[in-house]
Each structure stands twice: as C-alpha cells, then as structure tokens.
C-alpha cells in the first residue's frame, strides 16, 4: 500500500516534468498507488487534484487527441513564481513581518514556506489585524483590475476596485461605483455573501480617480451633507487627547482654564454628535445654533424618552 503523501508527491513531480498533457491512463501507469482502473481510479485522481488545488497547486485539464480526450499537466507558471531575488536582509525582514503581524490564520506562514523562507519562531507579536474571508478575493480583484459585484446594505453594487485599506480597526474597499459613476468606500465586513469577480482587466475607472483621496480621515467627514463648521468646547482634562486626535490646526480658541474650542468641518452631523457624546460631560457643542439645538433635542429625547422624532 503506497502512502497517499508518496502518491501525491510523485504526481506533482510527474505532472511538472514535461509540458505535454498526459491522459489519466498514462499518469496511473507512471505514478504508483492508483487503483487498477475504472471508476475507483478516476475518483482517486479527482480527490488528489482537489487536494492539490486546496494546497494551491493547480492541475490543468487540456483537450488532447485520442481515446481519453483529456490530458493533465501542472503549468510551470501556475506552480513557480519568477525568482524574487531577495537579499538575505530582505528575506529576514519579510520573515519578521509575518511573525509579528497576526491575521488569524496561517496564510503568512504558508507564503513563507512557498518562497523557501520558513519563519523564525519566538518573535514578539506587533500587530493583530482581524482578517476577513473576503479579503484575499478582493485583493486579487484589485491586483488584476477585475470588477467586483457584491450585496451591500440591501443593494447589489458593481465596483471597479482600486484599493484595500485598513483603518481604525476596519477594512475598506475603495473603488469606482460603476452604477453611481462616483467614488465609493465600502466596509468589507458589511458585504453580504461572497463577491463575484469579473475577468482580469475588466475594471475601468476614470483617469483622474484617486482612491487615496476617497476615504476621509474623520467620521464626521464621512457624509454628503453640506459642510457646516461646528465649534466644540472640550474641558481641560481631555483637551490634549482631543487636540492630538483632530489636529492643532482645528484649535479655534484656547481658554485660560485649559479648555479648548475646536472648529470642525462637518458633513455628517449624526457622526459628529456621536463623537461629542463619547466625550461625556467633558464636551459641548457651542455653535452653530442649529447643531446645538439638534444636540439638545437628542438629549431631551434620551432624557425624557419623548416620542418627538429626532433624525438618526
């Protein structure tokens, strides 16, 4: 009885050796361990092909002349990468990166194995980025400039993807929405189901499209409302943290008691309200009156459980 690992290893070597596709009959004659013939042999071979594919080794089926009509091979370009020509310090740096950044699955280690740079153990973790199953598919689509189609908040979206971005704990896909003909940013964890990927090169976007510009830095800029300048008073205690977060340039007034007033450009009032309320009793909207009144109405609705409608 031949060990299945031995059969798989021989199969890889045989299918890689020459560029002529071989029919299963020939493969079974060359690779020890397959059942004599018939359906059992076919099933065993199909199972091996699946195992190889799951492990990232693609066996191609090609039409051939003759009784069996289909031949198999592993194309060198499907198996090998062009040589990366990495210097030892570059190899070491990639090793450390994979050891230090955790993605919740062993893909990084597997990548190093395939490159022939097995990881060093005992490295102190450095960052942990929640990986989502959709990410490799989207990354592949971005790299191949292929369109993606997915369900998002009840709509089907068709997007030319430009960039994957991790920020503030979330993954975003930035792209050109082909139906809305405008730049859009999508939270990857909010996509429903798997994305469908188009053919390579199918994603076309305007020449002047700049994906880097399309993800605003602050939540209160993530909206399409008219820009409103809002003044927020922050007490002494939290002032340094808030100024570090929103930047020195937003400081409109520094009071003698240590409090600051920051002036923010807001296109999403609900997001601004949420941000101010997270500062609890240490912050207050001063102006304009309309935004201050909105905040008071919100607090009254919360305090009184009144049924007066407040925009969400």
């Amino acid at each position, binding site marked *: 009885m031949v060990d299945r*690992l*031995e059969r798989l*290893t*021989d199969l890889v*070597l*045989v299918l890689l050796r020459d560029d002529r596709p071989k029919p299963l009959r020939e493969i079974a004659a060359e690779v020890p361990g397959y059942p004599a013939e018939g359906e059992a042999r076919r099933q065993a071979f199909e199972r091996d092909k699946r195992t190889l594919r799951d*492990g*990232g080794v693609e066996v191609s089926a090609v039409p051939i002349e003759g009784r069996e009509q289909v031949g198999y091979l592993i194309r060198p*370009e*499907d*198996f*090998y990468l062009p040589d*990366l020509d*990495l*210097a030892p*310090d*570059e190899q070491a740096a*990639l090793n450390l*990166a*994979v050891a*230090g*950044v955790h*993605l919740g*699955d062993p*893909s*990084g280690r*597997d*990548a*190093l*194995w*395939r*490159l022939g740079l*097995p*990881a060093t153990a*005992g490295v102190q*973790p*450095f960052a*942990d*980025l*929640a990986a989502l199953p959709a990410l*490799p*598919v989207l*990354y592949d689509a971005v*790299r191949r400039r292929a369109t993606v189609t997915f369900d998002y908040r009840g709509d089907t979206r068709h997007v030319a993807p430009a*960039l994957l971005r*991790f920020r*503030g*704990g979330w993954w975003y896909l930035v792209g050109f929405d082909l139906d809305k003909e405008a730049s859009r940013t999508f939270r990857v964890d909010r996509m429903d189901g798997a994305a469908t990927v188009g053919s390579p090169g199918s994603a076309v976007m305007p020449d002047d499209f700049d994906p880097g510009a399309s993800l605003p830095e602050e939540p209160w800029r993530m909206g399409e409302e008219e820009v409103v300048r809002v003044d927020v008073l922050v007490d002494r*205690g*939290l002032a340094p943290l808030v100024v*570090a977060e929103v930047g020195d340039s937003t400081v409109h007034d520094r009071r003698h008691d240590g409090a600051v007033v920051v002036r923010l450009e807001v296109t999403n009032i609900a997001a601004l309200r949420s941000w101010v*309320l997270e*500062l*609890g009793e240490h912050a*207050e909207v001063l102006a304009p009156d309309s935004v201050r009144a909105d905040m*008071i109405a919100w607090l*009254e609705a919360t*305090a009184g459980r009144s049924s007066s409608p*407040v925009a*969400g």
Partner: protein
Amino acid sequence: MPARADAGYRLHRLLAVLTWLARQGRAPVAELAERFGIGPDELIADLELAACCGLPPYTPDQLMEIMVDEEEVVANLGPELARPRRLTAAEGFALATAARAIEAVPGADPDGSLARGLDKLEAVLGDRDRLRIDLGEPPHLAELRRAVEAHEQIELGYYSVSSDEESVRVVDPLSVVALDGRWYLDGYCHRAGDRRRFRVDRVLSVRPTGAAAPGPPPGALAGEVADHRAGEVGEAAFVPGPDAVVARVAVDDTGLWLTDAAPTLGVEPLPDGRTVVRLAVASTVWFDRLLLRLGPHGEVLDPPELADSGRRAAQRLLARYRPPAAGGS
C-alpha cells in the same frame, strides 16, 4: 495544528521542507523540525518517504537524493525544487499585509530592507500600491516603543474612560501592540501592582524615571501576548472581568451600530422588529456614554439598576446646555 495532519497539509509542508533543503543542501534534524513545527520522528518519516519519490521508472538515479540519519539531513535536489512557488490569493494577501503593516509604523523599517523586499514581491504579485494599512500614530507611540526596546521604566500620565479619571503611574513597559486598529501598551503597573493594558491614544504624558524596567522573562512574551483576547486584565474594557454585569439593550435599525462599537455577547431579534444586544458592562461611565450615543434608538431592558442609566446621563449633560433656571422642565 492537527495531531494527524491531512495529506494536503503534509504535502504542502513536505514541499516546503524540500525547497529549504534544495537551497541549504543540509540541515540538522532538530533545526528543520523546529522551523517547520513538526516532530523529529514525523519529519524523518516524511523525508524517508520523499526519498522514495521521483520519476518513472523510479530507479535510484530517478529518485530524490535525500539521506537522513538521526542527526542530520543531507540532500542534493537540484535547482527546480529550490525555486519559490506561486502563492495562493490568501498567501499573497497575508504577506503583503504583514509587510505593509510594519511599514506603516514610523521607525519600524530603519534600513529599508522590508520596503525593498516588499517591492520585489509586489512586482511579482502584480499591481503595486493596492493595499494601505493605517495603524494610527497617537502622539506618544514613538516614545513608548523606544521605552519598551530600551527597557526603561516610565511615569505614565493616563486618562481612564472607565473611571473618568486622570492618573499618573509608574509602569515597566513590556510591549506595544496594535490590536484591531488601536495601539496598546502592556506593562507592569506599580500603582496597581499587576499587569495592565493601556490605550496609547489615552496616554497624556510619558517621562522616563531613569530606572531600568525588568524585561519580560525570556520566551514568555510571545505566548502571553498571543492569548491577549483570553482575558488579560487591562483597560481595554473588551474583556468581561468577573465584576462585569451583563446588560440587554434593545436597539432599532439605526442603533444597530452598537454591535460594531462594543463587545457583544449575543444578538437576538425582538418581535417588534428591534434587536436585543447583550453586552458586558464593566464600567458605568463607559456604558452611560454608549447610551448617550444610542439616544432614542436604544433602550436598556436589563438589569433594572441600569435601566435608567441613559436617561440620567442625558439629564446631567443637558444641565451643561441649559441655563440652570430653565433646567428640569
């Protein structure tokens, strides 16, 4: 890793070992076993099996040339097996993400080795610059990273949301890690007399005390930080401690963001169309602010002692907005 690995994983691992051997020529069994996370006996068995593999007619000259004894493996495998192999989509993504994440931290790639390696990798993988990782850069991050590396004890000014207090404490810093988009400092806090985790964006000041901080016990840190989600005490407020109370909050569709903003223990629908979110509440200050943000879109169902939290917090905050004479109307 499963105790009895399946055939696909064994093949993947064996090819990786062979690639390494094709490049190195020889390697001690113990070193190979450690590198590939495999027991020495299993490694030897796999390599002995590989020595029987090759091409038809499987005469000795067509088999892989691998000699194994208990101490060492010697192999003569030819250049084909030494070549780097194609990465799956998940592997390419993982490698690029890891490299980009490190690159995003100022000072983390001082001599540019990583940037050069990543450049070569992305040239082969396809399009460049399609992945951006932003881990944030709170003001005191660089100082804290330096203190960890230099084993310097520090005096830390810190704002704690859970107690709504500023404090100054002496800390022996152990590590600085980015978890899901936020930076944390792990260290031994002399005020608490225990390990604590601090959010770097809430650090108000850092001052070296001049004393040396004892480093982590050798080899201990990797494991400790690896199970950071399992309940290390700290400020993250994401880990329900023994004192945490479980609250049930009903939210409408507008309030569903709650499941993103807080660590939820469970979610279930209500007949009226709303959703019940179960949360561990370790700090009432934190919970009050969450309820303020939910406003009329959330309602505390349980426990009774927290049912009024949002209402009272809103009343307190309203006092700031309304002149006292008009208050309480």
